[in-house]
């Protein structure tokens, strides 16, 4: 870890008073900064909070929202809640995966640009089927709209 990383982590830890019972909040802040939980960062907070690494790893793997794998620049979350599911969210997911060469076990593209994953509900059932790109909501999606969205994002990146 660089000194910058350590400063980021120290700031997060001190904003939670180094309180081990706030470990989830600390991890959320780390994930907000890095978009995932780097292993070294968890090892670092384990020492600072006085919690075993195995315990922190347990928390990180228990919650679906925590990720131990690095995510792409654009994290696309496709809602597969009941409302979105019945309004055909699965074809949108399949289309996105097809364009980006991703699958059930591979969520992030090799160039580190895109991550595609599903969520159980975005709370935007009125806009079903919905997806988000880095927390911006795209309502009433179709496979065609998904293709356009990816194209637009790629163009913005110049690829």
């Amino acid at each position: 870890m660089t000194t910058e990383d350590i400063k980021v982590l120290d700031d997060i830890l001190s904003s939670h008073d180094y309180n081990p019972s706030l470990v989830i909040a600390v991890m959320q802040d780390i994930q907000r900064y890095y978009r995932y939980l780097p292993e070294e960062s968890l090892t670092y907070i384990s020492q600072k909070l006085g919690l075993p690494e195995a315990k922190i790893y347990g928390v990180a793997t228990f919650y679906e929202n925590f990720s131990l794998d690095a995510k792409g620049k654009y994290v696309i979350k496709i809602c597969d809640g009941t409302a979105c599911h019945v309004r055909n969210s699965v074809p949108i997911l399949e289309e996105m995966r097809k364009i980006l060469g991703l699958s059930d076990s591979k969520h992030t593209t090799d160039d580190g640009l895109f991550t595609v994953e599903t969520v159980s509900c975005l709370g935007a059932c009125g806009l079903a089927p919905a997806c988000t790109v880095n927390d911006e909501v795209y309502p009433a999606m179709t496979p065609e709209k998904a293709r356009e969205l990816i194209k637009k994002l790629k163009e913005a990146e110049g690829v």
Partner: protein
Amino acid sequence: MAKYMIVDGIRVEFTDERNVLQVVQKAGIHLPTFCYYTELSIYGACRMCMVEDSRGSVMAACSTPPRDKMEIRTNTSRLHDYRKMILELLLASHCRDCTICEKDGRCRLQMLATRFGLNQVRFKDTRPEMPIDDSSIAIIRNPGKCILCGDCVRMCNEVQHVGAIDFAYRGSNAIVTPAFGRTLAQTDCVHCGQCAAVCPTAAIVVKSDLKNVWKALYAPNTRTVVQVAPAVRVALGEEFGLKPGDNSIGKIFTALRMCGFNTVFDTSFAADLTIMEESKELVEKLKKGDTQMPLFTSCCPGWIKFVETKHPDLMPYVSTCKSPMEMFGAVIKDYYKKADEESGLKTVSVAVMPCSAKKAEAARDEFKTNGVPDVDYVITTTELIKMIRELGIQFNEIEPSAPDMPFSISSGAGMIFGTTGGVTEAALRRVAENSQYAMKEIEYSGVRGFDGVKSAYVTLGDTALRIAVVSGLGNADELIKKIKSGEEHFDFVEVMACPGGCVSGAGQPHAYVENKKKRAAGLYTTDKSALVKRSNDNPVVMHMYETGVLKNRAHELLHVHYHTCDKK
């Protein structure tokens, strides 16, 4: 009026029982359970101890506090079906190669399946195969045999403060694992093996060295020498129908000779050497006026590893004495060196220990001479039991015998090393004046007993020493925090990694706390009838210092410099 419960129609009075399970036990019924240990927190994972109350609702007896006039049943038709279903589901996702399993005959899952007459498993095992982790030098984890009772996790975290393993993932994907899917060897595991000691199945077991030991016993031109630790004698007999605490050391010596060992010794002898050296160290430390930090004992390899990983700054305060096993290992190899050169024999040194961490200790570089370990192989009490069984030795019928010359005498002080407080008492006997009064004063000073933390003041000449005796690494961790913060001050601190000391070691047959206490009591009984009570009254020890192998060589053979001391 005394509070009472009605258990299966029987009135059972209770006072401060922790849960319904213990009240039921008073009624003479042992409810089946995988995840309940009195010394661990209540978890309620296995659901085998379910009971039904008068309104027909079912609850886990382990996690229900008893209430006055509560009426419960432990054996209704519904509970019968529940228990069988739980067992069937557990077995469905469990390897069923019982005949070649390490735990065959001692596995609680197997025992309960037999007890409940389970004769079919209707469900397929759909779990992905998980690799066995044999990276550790002392402990093997087989996740395929894990039933997720969490006993190991709570032991490692709550009691030992090591935290090498924990639950990860959730629901049907839940597993017990070190952090980030690492192997056990990559963690801070101290090899105390208490996880294996509480594991109901063979998901965590102590690594076996029997194969190598048999090979050495059958090899030509080999001198096999074996030493037996104090705590082994009061536990081994349990597997052959003796009571916990019955001292069977004489039979153990005979059995070892029948196994083919050429020479048998008692590690208690080396414990006397440890006392000679450690008490000298203490007196010198006090003389120097270096009293800010206490002198920590060094007999327990689990404790040493714990200091190295969790409190490395304390390493300079840990005694430089080797453990009795390693002292003896060095002395044995040195003693037979000349004879081996003349006769062309090769000495193989084996130790029978109640402990899994001793396996890791024997493999440390500090305890090797020219790359060869001073103690070649360490086997546990349980492994020796297997050897005795394999050869068909009728343990109850064989005659006891004595250890071999020349290290044939041990003091009572050396024998009580096997329980918490023993090392301290032995050291105090050495440094205190030689009188019956002084012996009694030490006995009743508070160093005896099964409590995790004991402290005492002992007068030594005109100074009062403050002494602490700790067992269980979690207790040690807490005490260290207090010492570092200045809240507590001690001159001497004895630490044993396992709660209760070596009698509770991971190499011993499975036992609950009550029986472990009986083992400890058995050691004190042995001490009572010992002819020599103090290490410095042991004539063999004194002879060794005056004219024997230790003359001018005590430091070389009996002390160690741990490499981790150098790192700052």
